[in-house]
């Protein structure tokens, strides 16, 4: 009995410790910022570029004297792109490292899971790349009733809406096929696009699925070929898209391909350089002519062996600066104070242009359209949907 009471007492102290820890200021002379993303595995290219960009931003800030006299430090955790690993990364960052904010997770699946925890525990999360519409729609479960989840990438809801309107109104397609992987990202985009496209009067003549990690898409492509669409929408990550483009050419498919922001990763031009010509994809809108973007790209290339950052890495760079600015204004590492300042971000001038957050944490943005010539994406322009019609913004 006495033993049981002792255990209870110890447990109580432990719990109290955790709560006290939650409100505690960042220890020592550093502000810790967490990062969650895939650093190994098939899709590690996304996570590595995003963490590189965040680290670059932090190095720049530190070289400039840090924030309020303190240095920033990035603690990058490897999620391997899975929900389980992302959650254990989150637990380490939130409870052991006690970071003041988290950049990531990079992929939608892990982001949905971590967003839920961030809302519960009251820790700011800014994803540079998780585009599923529900990432910013997780229940706000913290005691203050405040939103802690933000992103510097446009929501899929926005992307698929602009995509459908662009395909229907500008490109004039009426019959599309889609081939998408069974993950939150690709499924969300394909379904969202199909919904808007059919509402406009278009038709999806074939809607084929595959699994992440599949290498053979010939059965699906053969079916798509038989359905004879005017174009094929493939909102997937580069590893799948590269294979799809190549195998489609082998099966004699001549219909053009349409894609999503996953296509903005330059890795696609290493994997399938002969098959990218003519692909049109909807992705991030390009920033107004500013030196911030070109400076970032040059600094990134210099820091990482001439590698080129993708759009997600650019978002990650901006997210890091937004967090740093929030910490500076908050004057502490208190997670609630940092949240208030992130939410108060107004017309932040980043590498991706002017950044504002909607009340739910979504990025306020227009969408860019790109047309690939050979292995070079050519920027067509920025678009928004206004009154159910597509409008070119610039």
């Amino acid at each position, binding site marked *: 009995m006495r033993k049981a009471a002792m255990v209870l007492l110890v447990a109580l102290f432990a719990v109290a410790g955790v709560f006290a820890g939650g409100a505690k200021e960042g220890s020592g002379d550093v502000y810790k910022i967490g990062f969650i993303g895939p650093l190994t595995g098939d899709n590690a290219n996304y996570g590595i570029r995003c963490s590189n960009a965040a680290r670059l931003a932090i190095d720049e800030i530190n070289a400039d004297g840090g924030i309020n006299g303190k240095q920033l430090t990035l603690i990058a955790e490897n999620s391997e792109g899975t929900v389980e690993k992302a959650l254990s990364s989150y637990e380490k960052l939130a409870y052991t490292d006690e970071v003041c904010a988290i950049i990531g997770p990079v992929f939608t699946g892990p982001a949905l899971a971590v967003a839920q925890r961030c809302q519960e525990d009251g820790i700011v999360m800014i994803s540079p790349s998780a585009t599923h519409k529900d990432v910013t729609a997780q229940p706000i479960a913290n005691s203050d009733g405040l939103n802690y989840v933000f992103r510097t990438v446009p929501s899929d809801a926005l992307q698929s809406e602009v995509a459908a309107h662009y395909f229907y109104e500008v490109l004039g397609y009426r019959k599309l096929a889609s081939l998408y*992987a069974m993950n939150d990202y690709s499924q969300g985009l394909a379904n969202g696009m199909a919904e808007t496209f059919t509402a406009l009067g278009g038709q999806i003549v074939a809607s084929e699925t595959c699994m992440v990690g599949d290498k053979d898409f010939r059965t*699906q492509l053969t079916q798509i070929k038989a359905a004879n669409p005017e174009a094929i929408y493939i909102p997937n990550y580069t590893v799948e898209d590269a294979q799809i483009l190549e195998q489609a050419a082998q099966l004699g498919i001549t219909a053009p391909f349409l894609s999503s922001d996953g296509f903005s990763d330059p890795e696609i031009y290493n*994997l399938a350089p002969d098959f990218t010509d003519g692909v049109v994809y909807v992705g991030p809108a390009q920033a107004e002519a500013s030196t911030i973007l070109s400076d970032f790209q040059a600094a990134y290339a210099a820091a990482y062996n001439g590698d080129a950052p993708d759009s997600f890495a650019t978002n990650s760079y901006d997210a890091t600066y937004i967090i740093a600015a929030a910490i500076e204004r908050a004057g502490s590492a208190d997670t609630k104070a940092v949240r208030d300042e992130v939410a108060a971000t107004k017309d932040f001038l980043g590498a991706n242009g002017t950044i504002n957050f909607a009340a739910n944490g979504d990025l306020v943005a227009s969408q860019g359209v790109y047309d690939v010539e050979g292995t070079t994406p050519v920027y067509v322009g920025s678009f928004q949907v206004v009154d159910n019609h597509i409008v070119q913004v610039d």
Partner: protein
Amino acid sequence: MATLTLYIQYIVNGLTLGAIYSLIALGYTMVYGILKFINFAHGDILMVGAFIGLIVYEALLGTSTSPVWMMAAFFIAMIVSMVLSALLGMFIERVAYKPLRNANRLAPLLSAIGVSFILSNGAAWIFGTQSRRFPYPFDNTPITFGGISITPHQILMLVVSVVMMVLLAFFVNKTRMGKAMRATSLDQPTSALMGINVNRVISLTFAIGSALAAVGGILAAFDFRVYPSMGTMTGLKAFVAAVIGGIGSIPGAMIGGILLGILEAVGAPLLHIPNGLKDTVAFAVLIIVLLLRPEGILGKNEREKV
């Protein structure tokens, strides 16, 4: 496109995929036939073979674009990779399996899983995790007749697989060493008493299996790309193909591989279910096959020796 043409296209695609599974399944089945043990590192030898092939090919090619030299470089790379993979297979057997030959049956199995992790993590550490393209050594423009496309690469896969399988069948059935192999598979202690060098036979089995895996890895690499975990799923499927065909039976592995490839390509469209479930269909059919013939299609229903 007429339905018939459509299905012929599926079968062509399935056949070429199946040829790769067959090549890899041979390694599983040969080792099992002789040692009654599943070499789970086999899929990773395939990956190592693909990496060696790619590195040798790129080194040989340099900046040359002569079509003849490209093909020659490709075949040289394939042979180098076969030899090195064979040596790797023999080495793994010597250090990780041979000392455990008389241990509990689970011990070599766990050892094999350990080797599998060492190989794939080692490759990730040395080469990085991103996928690499294996450039085609020839113009891969598809050949079309009657609405059916087949690429030179698919033809190459079929031809090389068939040649390898015919050579293997000849070796096992017509040569002295092949006879020794069959004898060892039948009864190891008696074979040893008859003067067969069992250790050499086992080494040779690993060498041949690994060389075939290297060929499979290189042929698959054009399609699948080269990356450290490429052997995991392909290896698993080839293992299943070997079991379906009747593990321990060489013709069984060939049939099992082809069957699995075709099931994957045809199964989902035939049943009108989403293609994302194609593996589910293929594996469901395989369970049915096993329920009907637990020993596999060509497996011998041998009693467990105690």
